[in-house]
């Protein structure tokens, strides 16, 4: 009888954001026993921050819209690095997932004839984002949370997962965790494990991501021997708040630009007109008059360049600031005050108004906002089978931001919330079928468990070692300055050296106090994930010697057509863990069928 708490389930889902909840719901609906394990309280995952909406080609506002256009927009946004089959499934299934959410109680904003309304967003040919004001993420997570509770799914909240358990064949068979409130160990034995752990933003100094976004799932997948891809593709959202420092990095939704806001430099010039890339020239307005007319008449005018995909806008802002045309606090201006009435702004963007007023004392109906690029989203992640979301290690599945392939080199706004629903469901289904077919019961190896726990509590036994807060801060500054929005070979190499030093220092972390709700210890157990993920990002960035989508190399400023045909895959082999090496190498992208290739060539 082990002296730690232990549970056995068919399926465990790690992470209770949109993807995790949807996966757990699906596995439960399929009749499996399901546990949902999450690091924060239920309903408070990073999904709550999503503001824009869920992209789905429902055709409620533009009947011309259909899944093929959505597929095309997604591939172009991703600079064709996406897994075509994931992009296809996503475009096809998103509408059903949105209607399903409505059937579970979500209250979206409506069109005049009572259907779910859809808004414009960067990179989408037609207005297709279902939304509720600017709090669609909250609506989604709350609806899914309420559905999960009504189904009686067991939820283990404030429970941190340290490491996945593997059996003798290398298949994943559960996880070793600890309760944050008490610090006590808890072990799960499971036939199928779904990772839905979200993002990696806490590796950077300025990020829109929540506290829990430390890349735990990415790291645990790597340590279990699974492949990850595109780790170099980190999206820097163009418009995060830059002042005051307490809110630097927090997101200003693209919806502000969708509703009429425009970007200006310190000369008052709408500079995005100077940055229209060839690929988007045909469908982007050339003059301010045309852009302004587009808001009300999409049919006869082309869209404003303020709504180019995020990588283009982030780079443009970066260039303007470096050239000295930025704001006093290092950003550019986002102006909606001079373009829409105060009533319109307060009605369409209530939480933007609220956020700026309360935290920065800025009235967005009267003055412009200071915004700049912030680390926002991780396109890279666990390599999965597009239909089942199974990883390259048996028994392991991944969905949502932790999975890679769906968004290629750059994600379109609105495509994440839809990704969560489509692939959350598929992961739940895949895990459920795998669990049903898996022979024998998964059994946790006590030696494995003891080793993981001993590692984690080792920090209490060292006197006067490294402070986890110090290490975290140094990691963040290293990534921010050397692996940020513009990268260069020598800096990436320097970053890798620094990360190697930080890994050594991390083995000597020390914390004081007890195990119960000890944030220093909690951070100490997050640091290995952050180090692994940061190493993978830097390695991937060094390996990909081109600029594509969100990945920009100063020393290789153009896309290389040969590299556009490969994924950079990373994995650990014999040695595993946060001090073990991660191997990186190119592998060809999956081949797209001809009919979809033809689709990409057509004009909309």
């Amino acid at each position: 009888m082990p002296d730690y708490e232990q549970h056995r389930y068919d399926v465990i889902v790690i992470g209770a954001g949109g993807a995790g909840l949807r996966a757990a719901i699906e596995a439960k609906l399929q009749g499996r026993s399901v546990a949902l394990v999450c690091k924060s309280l239920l309903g408070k995952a990073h999904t709550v921050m999503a503001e824009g909406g869920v992209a789905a080609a429902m055709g409620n506002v533009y009947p011309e819209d259909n899944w093929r256009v959505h597929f095309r927009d997604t591939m172009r946004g991703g600079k064709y690095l996406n897994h075509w089959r994931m992009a296809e499934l996503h475009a096809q299934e998103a509408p059903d997932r949105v209607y399903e959410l409505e059937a579970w109680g979500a209250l979206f904003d409506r069109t005049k004839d009572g259907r779910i309304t859809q808004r414009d967003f960067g990179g989408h040919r037609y207005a297709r984002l279902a939304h509720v004001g600017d709090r669609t993420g909250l609506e989604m997570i709350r609806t899914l949370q309420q559905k999960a509770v009504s189904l009686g799914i067991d939820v283990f909240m404030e429970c941190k997962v340290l490491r996945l358990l593997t059996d003798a064949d290398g298949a994943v068979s559960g996880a070793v965790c600890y309760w944050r409130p008490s610090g006590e160990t808890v072990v799960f034995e499971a036939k199928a494990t779904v990772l839905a752990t979200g993002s990696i933003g806490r590796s950077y100094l300025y990020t829109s991501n929540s506290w829990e976004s430390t890349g735990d799932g990415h790291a645990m997948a790597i340590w279990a021997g699974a492949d990850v891809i595109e780790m170099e593709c980190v999206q820097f959202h163009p418009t995060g708040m830059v002042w005051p420092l307490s809110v630097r990095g927090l997101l200003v939704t693209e919806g502000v630009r969708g509703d009429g806001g425009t970007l200006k430099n310190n000369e008052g010039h709408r500079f995005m007109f100077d940055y229209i890339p060839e690929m988007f020239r045909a469908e982007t307005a050339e003059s301010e008059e045309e852009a302004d007319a587009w808001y009300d008449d999409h049919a006869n005018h082309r869209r404003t360049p303020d709504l180019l995909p995020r990588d283009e806008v982030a780079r443009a802002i970066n260039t303007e600031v470096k050239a000295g045309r930025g704001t006093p606090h290092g950003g550019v201006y986002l102006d909606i005050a001079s373009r829409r009435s105060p009533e319109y702004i307060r009605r369409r963007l209530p939480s933007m108004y609220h956020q700026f007023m309360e935290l920065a004392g800025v009235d967005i109906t009267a003055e412009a906002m200071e915004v700049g690029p912030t680390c926002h989203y991780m396109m890279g992640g666990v390599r999965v089978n597009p239909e089942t979301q199974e990883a390259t290690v048996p028994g392991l599945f991944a969905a949502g931001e932790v999975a890679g392939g769906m968004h290629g080199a750059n994600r379109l706004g609105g495509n994440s919330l839809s990704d969560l629903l489509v692939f959350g469901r598929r992961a739940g289904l895949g895990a459920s079928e795998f669990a049903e077919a898996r022979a024998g019961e998964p059994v946790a190896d006590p030696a494995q468990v003891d080793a993981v726990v001993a590692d984690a509590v080792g920090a209490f036994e060292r006197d006067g070692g490294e402070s986890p807060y110090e290490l975290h801060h140094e990691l963040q500054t290293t990534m921010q300055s050397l692996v940020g929005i513009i990268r260069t070979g020598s800096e990436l190499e320097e970053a890798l050296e620094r990360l190697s030093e930080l890994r050594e220092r991390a083995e000597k972390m020390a914390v004081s106090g007890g195990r119960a709700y000890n944030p220093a210890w909690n951070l100490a157990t997050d640091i290995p994930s952050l180090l692994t993920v940061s190493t993978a990002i830097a390695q991937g960035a060094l390996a990909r010697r081109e600029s594509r989508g969100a990945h920009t190399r100063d020393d290789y400023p153009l896309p290389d057509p040969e590299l556009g045909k490969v994924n950079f895959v990373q994995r650990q082999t014999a040695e595993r863990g946060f001090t073990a090496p991660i191997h990186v190498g190119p592998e060809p992208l999956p081949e797209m069928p001809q009919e979809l290739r033809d689709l990409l060539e057509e004009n909309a």
Partner: protein
Amino acid sequence: MADALPASTPVAPPPGSPDPVVVTDATGETEEVPEEPEAALESPGEHPVDYLPAAEEEPTVTLRVWRGDPAGGDLVDYTLPEEEGEVVLDVVHRIQASLAPDLACRWNCKAGKCGSCSAEINGKPRLMCMTRIDDLPEGPITVTPMRTFPIVRDLVTDVSFNYEVATRVPAFAPAPPPPGGYRMSQVDVERGQEFRKCIECFMCQDVCHVIRDHEDNKPDYAGPRFFIRFAELEMHPLDTNDRRELLRQRMGLGLCNITKCCTEVCPEHIKITDNGIIPLKERVVDASYDPVAWIGRKIIRRTKRAPDEAVEWSQERAGAGVLGQQGDAGGGVAWVPGADGSDGSDGSDGVEAPDRS
């Protein structure tokens, strides 16, 4: 006093780097340790120095924080140099990084969206991430945990009461969609949308005297957060459940005497009492005390399920363990509305539960 941490090596921004790096120095907890002045950043368009240069009388900020566990605790003062534009949570983080590494604090988004960082600041329930230091009066700022919930450690409380109540709310139960999908107009969804802005910060639950001052009421009182959840469901154009008897008999709607403390603390400015609780009370009264409506229910086939079904279901759920912070997880019975769209039984009105309306 805790030892000062070694100063981190300042990192000079590499040439051409777009985001110059500022490294925070972790010292600065007592008057005896002078703060090292930071080098000014040189790139054009960058923000000015992060710190005020060390002056003779540096402005400081003092948080008076409750430290302790279920066995007991005390208020402890922490003083740091003040920094521009901070919120209470920023100062808590700096205290963790320099003075008290194990100061327990729950937070997540730091943007007023997740509802994790609820605390009582100078006695008033506030989100720590949305309370600017500048807005508070001079002098030590008292930061204490939410009083209504059991202590875990320091500022962290056990809010599982709220998750347990959630399992007893009968789910949304729409009829199947008509061809072409559900239709609802914007004006019809707006009432529910107001309530769905709730970020579950639980400060309304914390401040409500019915449970704040009377622990023994908890099993019979859902609290303001859940009253608006019930309101949202009852006002949902597509819902077919009727939860009014449940509200009256089991959820303690009648215990609310509309003092509106909940409305006052809601960070989303939801009009909990006026738009949620009072209309619910009116609907409950219609269901229970209007003799004409009672007769009507007996005679006419209703499209909503009988109110008493909800009561019965809830009685089955009572005591089912739910979400464990400490391993008490158990799923319990789920009440998923049948696809048959039955409208329930004739609904006996012979209720035994004490009348609290």
